[in-house]
């Protein structure tokens, strides 16, 4: 069984049934707005919106928490570095190290922003199977080459995963145990190189097979999407919500703290 899985793409919730194109556009705009937001008011409102979307997607919450923990483990390191290096008023001193108030506020903001974006993407984009995602992006007039790059990557990811496991197994049955020595590093380098060479060969064969079926540089998409009333309602509501965020961020004097 493959270890690469689409954990959240299957389901029958409202978030799953919406047209992927609407979800992608809304998620994209939301992520953009959140990325440039600098106030706690807009960020907290954004986080609340993202959580509402997540609730609508009715995903297995344990898996969502696991995924959030993975993301937050990266952010965790920011808490060690940013408060100590950001210039501002010192609130806490430990030997030569000093944490600043502005640093703590800034790190908190980044934490909230990242979580809001990740939750929104889990609720809106991860609920679309990758294959549909590629077709929807193509339908949204994204350059064909980029969409097909995504679809090809996804298609052959599994093949390379299998090849990787076969190679690792072949190493294991001959008694290979990773240690901290040159032999281990060299073997891992061979493994990586072999995967690269094989992927090159495979790309060659796939292209040949495509030529044999009359490929002449143009891809055709057969997928059609149906835009329904609920998609219209979803996009209008989302736009209103995004405008509220915009208002909180830029038009209203800072509610809580502006960094």
């Amino acid at each position, binding site marked *: 069984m493959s270890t690469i899985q689409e954990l959240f793409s299957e389901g029958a919730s409202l978030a799953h049934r919406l047209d992927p194109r609407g979800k992608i556009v809304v998620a994209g705009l939301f992520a953009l707005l959140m990325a440039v937001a600098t106030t706690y008011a807009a960020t907290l409102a954004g986080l609340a919106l993202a959580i509402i979307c997540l609730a609508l997607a009715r995903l297995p919450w344990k898996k969502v928490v696991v995924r959030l923990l993975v993301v937050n483990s990266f952010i965790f390191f920011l808490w060690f570095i940013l408060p100590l290096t950001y210039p501002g008023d010192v609130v806490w001193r430990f030997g030569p190290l000093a944490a600043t108030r502005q640093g703590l506020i800034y790190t908190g903001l980044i934490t909230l922003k990242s979580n809001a974006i990740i939750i929104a993407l889990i609720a809106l984009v991860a609920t679309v199977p990758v*294959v549909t995602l590629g077709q929807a992006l193509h339908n949204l007039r994204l350059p064909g080459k980029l969409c097909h790059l995504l679809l090809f990557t996804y298609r052959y990811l599994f093949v390379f995963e299998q090849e990787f496991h076969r190679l690792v197994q072949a190493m294991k049955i001959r008694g290979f145990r990773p240690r901290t020595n040159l032999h281990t590093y060299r073997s891992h380098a061979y493994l990586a190189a072999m995967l690269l060479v094989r992927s090159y060969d495979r790309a060659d064969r796939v292209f*040949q097979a495509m030529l044999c079926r009359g490929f002449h540089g143009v891809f*055709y998409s057969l997928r059609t999407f149906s835009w329904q009333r609920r998609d219209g309602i979803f996009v209008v509501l989302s736009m209103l919500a995004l405008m509220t965020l915009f208002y909180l961020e830029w038009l209203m004097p800072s509610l809580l703290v502006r960094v």
Partner: protein
Amino acid sequence: MSESLIELQNITFAYPGAPHPVFQDFNFQLLPGKHIGLIGPNGCGKTTLLHLIMGLLRPQAGSIFIFGEEVRKEKDFVAVRKKVGLLFQNADDQLFCPTVLEDVAFGPLNQGKPPAEAIRIAQVTMERLGLQGFEDRVTHKLSGGEKKLVSLATVLAMQPQLLLLDEPTSGLDENTKHRLMHILQDLDIAYMIVSHERDFLNNTVAECCHVHATCCKST
């Protein structure tokens, strides 16, 4: 010359860096309606022969005639590929579209068929091979046997006049082998099969040829 589907005359072909050429003054002919099996040890040039016919490899010397016309340039081979289908040894090389329907319709779309027509052809072809209901299956999640049958559907959807099969039975179970056997027996076009399985060949082709560096000898 016009009576043979494929005619190779005095072909010389060597892979770059290889000490011996695969083919030296090689001659070969395939007549219409014939079903031929190609056999021989690994590395004797069976797959190379198929790739030379499709124009994926180019000979260093000699000439190739397909449907009575000489093919030399890429442009000539583009026309050949519309009439000759090649089933690759590894189905993962052949299936690259997300869903089965899109993969089977890929060839007809390349031939310039409108999408509705391409979908119809794809569905008819899949029905012929007993693959009804596979339209929305994701290609990489199919089993090995299913992948092979879908690959065959992608080639047959282009309505070729000649079919080349490169070790079609490798990795298949008995059941799928039998399905493939019956599909081939029902085909009304000429085909050539590269295979190591005499049993399979005995049931699908009239004669077997041993591939040598200079010619194919009937066994």
